[in-house]
């Protein structure tokens, strides 16, 4: 219609200006941090959801390696049904962990085997204790880590696989480790993964790359447990709305037919 065509050229000009502006180098946040190399993930894209087998292996990596220092206080054992495990499996997994279970008869806090209702076992009772055990550095809680970092999945994978010898001329501070991806290149965490560090029950070879991918897949799920339901619902809702838009447009044309 006449009306929209007259604005087309200016709108195009504005769009080009905006596109041009984004070409100016200098990222918005953390300009001193290298962008981690891009990876392909099962959960990429509009329809992507995490590969559950990989996420289950990643949970194993988290439990056997990372949970020594990193808590995930927002996760409960009952949430593991989201990885495709059934109630009995979840109950069994929970019971392998010893977690706080209230007070004993003397009023002293006691531990006991975990139940599905319990939160994931935390390695430290609070942040202060965590720092004390780690030279003042706080191993961050991993419940939302993938969402809490720019390009979270690529970043965490990059850090886990980015340990290397410091280049010549680079001065390392005491107790720090060189990492290609970590901002500033010095990270307090020592290299957590080596080949064969865990043994997978499904026989998948446990290379550093494999374990890193699996644990990132698990952490992505942990940060976004609703993702599969959300994307499935999204497909149905958007399709429905497209149909509804079509029908309402047909009604509009009919209503306006005596005017045009």
């Amino acid at each position, binding site marked *: 219609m006449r009306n929209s065509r007259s604005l087309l050229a*200016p709108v195009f000009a504005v769009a080009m200006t905006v596109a041009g502006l984004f070409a100016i180098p*200098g990222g*918005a*946040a953390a300009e001193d941090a290298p962008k981690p190399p891009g990876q392909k993930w099962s959960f990429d894209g*509009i329809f992507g959801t995490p590969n559950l087998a990989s996420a289950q292996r990643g949970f194993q990596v988290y439990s056997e390696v990372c949970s020594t220092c990193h808590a995930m206080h927002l996760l409960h054992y009952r949430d593991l049904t989201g990885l495709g495990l059934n109630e009995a499996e979840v109950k069994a997994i929970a019971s392998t962990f010893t977690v706080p279970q209230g007070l004993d008869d003397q009023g002293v806090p006691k531990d006991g085997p975990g139940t599905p209702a319990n939160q994931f076992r935390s390695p430290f009772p609070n942040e202060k204790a965590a720092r004390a055990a780690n030279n003042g550095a706080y191993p961050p809680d991993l419940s939302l880590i993938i969402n809490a970092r720019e390009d979270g999945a690529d970043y965490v994978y990059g850090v886990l696989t980015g340990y290397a010898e410091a280049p010549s001329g680079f001065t390392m501070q005491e107790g720090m480790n060189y990492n290609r991806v970590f901002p500033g290149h010095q990270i307090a965490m020592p290299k957590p993964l080596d080949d064969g560090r865990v043994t997978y029950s499904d026989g998948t070879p446990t290379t550093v790359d494999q374990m890193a991918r699996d644990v990132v897949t698990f952490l992505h799920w942990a940060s976004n447990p609703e993702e599969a339901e959300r994307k499935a*619902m999204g497909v149905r809702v958007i399709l429905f709305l497209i149909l509804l*838009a079509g029908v309402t447009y047909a009604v*509009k044309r009919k209503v306006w037919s005596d*005017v045009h």
Partner: protein
Amino acid sequence: MAGLHKSDIPNPVLNWIDSRLPIITMMQKEYGVFPTPRNFNYFWNFGALAMVTLVVMILTGIFLAMHYQPNTTLAFDSVQHIMRDVNYGWLIRYVHQNGASMFFIVTYIHIFRGIYYGSYKAPRELLWILGVVILLLMMATAFMGYVLPWGQMSYWGATVITNLFSAFPGVGKYIVTLLWGGFSVDQPTLNRFFSLHYLLPFVLVGVVFLHVAALHIVGSNNPLGIEPRGPQDTLPFHPYYTAKDSVGVCVFLIVWGAFVFFAPNFLGDPNNFIEANPLQTPADIVPEWYFLPYYAILRSVPNKLLGVCMMFASLLVLLILPWLDTSRVRSARFRPTYKWFIFLWVVSFIVLGVCGAHKPEGVWVILSRVATLYYFAHFLVITPILGKLERPLPLPESITQSVTGRPLESH
């Protein structure tokens, strides 16, 4: 009986209600037969879209408030409780979170329509001013709402913006202490922000009511900017514009849904997934995208107090726009020179937005100063001068003549 409204409704129950409180008659008059220009384009959908957004935001907000805990030790986890444990909690939260962005997109386009087509000009000045009041209420509501999840950006954004008030000489420090309820952003601040965030949307509903009432006194503007000459220039709002608005709403919901279901955190900041830590400032403090232009204006001025004043001035200047514009012609469609300055203004607003997202160094400083300069020059210099100097295109005879190509038929 004395005093009853004479209702024409056939149904006896509805007639009884309507004769004592004529809301049905009112709805029929204001949204049924109300004469509306026949030549609206789709830019005229955006007011209705804003209303739909407001309703959805209030509904989702009420249900979120059933689970949210406004306590500094519990707030962050309560939002995660909503996301992970509450039935459909993730859906309600993401609709509300992205709805804030949708509200600003829709409102900014609605404002652009007003500027381009001269909808702020007499006799619609008060309608426009009420609109600016709505924009200010939206900004206050959104600002406080963003603090509630108590993430790093919630906390530090609140600290930076509330600290701005300390720029005012003498009383500044006391104003900030009053706002905080303490000596930094903390529990009292969070509590009152929650209370006010729940309250302001209902104040907004009241102002929207006034906004629509004011509109219905003077009638809608239209793309030609000329007043309807008679019934042949208008259509009853129902079914013509109820049908057209329905299409707009569906398309709008598709866009909103695309964000909610497939990119719910695209417009957000990763730092807000980290719980607020008063002892650690994030590397970059960035407000939500809809505040970026004003943030850029604030930072473009090296003086703190002047920066604050300029930022507020960039909104307050809108209030006097009806008196700054000296042109006899409303619609920019008939103002071939001014039209391009409006687009330049839009570009300056977007440039300011991009600048606001970057650290104030290097090219971004120069860019934001140039764009700020143009932003104000557009309203304070160009609009008044061009209104007098420009030779507008000839206006059409009437709306019907412009739409149908036929001259006005006499009745």
